């Protein structure tokens, strides 16, 4: 069975959930091999083996975090040349897409981004135009290089052990042409990451103010252990920070549960959330297009319904 390379995203060896999902997806195509690079990478080997990786290629070199994407591309390009894998799976993050794009050039291969499923013969399923259209695509030259969205498949704990192979980084002048001189963490809310969250509680124009987000939307999110999202109307009004915008020009989310409060559901917003598994809507306007996506909807004032719901959710703990 041919190998499938999975690029692992991690923070100092702590593996992100999407990487374990990709190992499960890789197992449907061939034999999963993980590639984990950067400081702390060796701490990830056991977890990766436990989730289906047969081989783990490891380097703890600082180069992978000190320079923008190129050192990672160089290692992957070398592995592709040596192993001729059936496919390379990469998380659909900003870094991941850029790595995939450059790897495609380096290996003269096709690249597909934002897949939500990949078949055994490496045909990718994508939800394009915000999920309005479902596309099947295949790579026709070189090695299929596919970036995959978070929450596309459940991780599988196999209880296996991976064999570790150390890889070298050969730092080229081009790779070191960018230099990360400082890493700045912005204050974390303690809530799950919007693009990874299983539940998203979102607010729109109907929330009315930044105060509304603080006193109505955030408490429901916290009661559910959810991430907070916002429509463009709300972020443009300055009620909630732009990085939480869900929509065509913001984040695309696909959680198990999406609760849309005071959001009308213009295409701009629907494009970012319509692949959510279950959608609950609270909106005063019975004609709001967002109700077309609702599995359950309440026509009413979010300022009374949502706080009541928050209290009720808390009572289930």
């Amino acid at each position: 069975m041919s190998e499938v390379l999975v690029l692992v995203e991690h923070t100092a060896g702590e593996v992100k959930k999407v990487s374990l999902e990709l190992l499960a997806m890789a197992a449907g195509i061939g034999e999963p091999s993980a590639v984990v690079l950067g400081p702390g990478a060796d701490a990830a080997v056991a977890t990766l083996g436990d989730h289906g990786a047969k081989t783990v290629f490891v380097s703890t070199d600082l180069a992978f975090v000190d320079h923008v994407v190129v050192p990672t591309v160089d290692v992957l390009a070398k592995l592709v040349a040596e192993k001729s894998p059936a496919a390379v799976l990469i998380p659909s993050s900003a870094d991941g897409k850029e790595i995939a794009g450059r790897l495609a050039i380096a290996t003269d291969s096709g690249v597909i981004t934002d897949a939500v499923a990949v078949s055994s013969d490496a045909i990718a399923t994508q939800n394009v135009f915000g999920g309005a259209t479902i596309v099947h695509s295949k790579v026709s030259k070189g090695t299929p290089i596919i970036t995959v969205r978070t929450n596309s498949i459940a991780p599988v704990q196999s209880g296996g052990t991976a064999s570790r192979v150390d890889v070298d980084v050969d730092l080229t002048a081009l790779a070191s042409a960018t230099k990360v001189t400082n890493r700045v963490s912005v204050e974390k809310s303690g809530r799950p990451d919007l693009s990874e969250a299983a539940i998203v509680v979102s607010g729109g124009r109907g929330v009315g103010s930044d105060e509304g987000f603080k006193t109505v939307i955030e408490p429901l999110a916290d009661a559910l252990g959810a991430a907070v999202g916002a429509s463009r109307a709300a972020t443009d009004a300055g009620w909630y920070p732009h990085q939480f915008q869900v929509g065509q020009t913001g984040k695309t989310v696909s959680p198990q549960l999406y609760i849309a409060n005071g959001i009308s559901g213009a295409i701009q917003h629907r494009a970012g959330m319509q692949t959510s598994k279950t959608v609950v809507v609270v909106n005063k306007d019975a004609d709001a297009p967002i109700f077309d996506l609702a599995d359950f909807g309440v026509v009413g004032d979010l300022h009374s319904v949502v706080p009541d719901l928050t209290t009720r959710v808390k009572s289930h703990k």
Partner: protein
Amino acid sequence: MKICVCVKQVPDSWAEKKLTAGDNTLDRASADRVVNELDEYAVEEALRIVEAGEGEVTILSMGPAEAADSVRKAISMGAHAGIHVVDDALHGSDALATSLVLAKALEGRGFDLIIFGSESTDARMSVVPAMVAARLGLPQMTFANKVEVSGSELTIHRVTDYGYDEVKSALPAVVSVVEKTNEPRYPSFKNIMAAKKAPMETLTLADLGLDAASVGLANAWSQVADFAERPAKAKGTVVADDGSGAEKIEEFLVAQKFI
């Protein structure tokens, strides 16, 4: 300082978008065509850098004949010249081919900075800036929400999931900017008039020394096998709030095992 901003003409991001039956490419006629919204941030950033010192901003776009309108539109924000690569053989080009064409068009023109929007609102791949950097062998300074040029040194804030990385490189470099990096200006009447007279180069594949066999739908590195509209969602339950709205949502969430 010579800056080139690469822009893409896309369907309006507020419009429904479709693929064309037959060749599975974007149906460009089904929606109004506009300059990709994120590219306006790139133009604004370029203008600010030039205005803080000196220099010229050139707009480059690859696309069908109508894309010339988007080049003029971007110039009308205050840029100086335009380059439009147009060739029937380009129809259906994928990101690899697009990056090849843009890199060829940029090569040898002595640009100190090449700036992109970080993604287009139609394809949303976010790969072309990185690919162009790779093809030109230039530093990849992408996903910036802050761009600073000091002499021949470039500093950006590269947006990450934990905040940002401060990244430095020498010039020339390839930059992409994220949404809200700045506040793109509206074209002034004076600049709209000036844009009509701004020099515009129109280039074909042959002008770039590229073979039609290296681009276009038939030569793409990946193909769309088929596509389908997402089936409309079965209508869910919608109730009017009579004071029991929250309770009904609670019941639904319990039944679905969310709480």
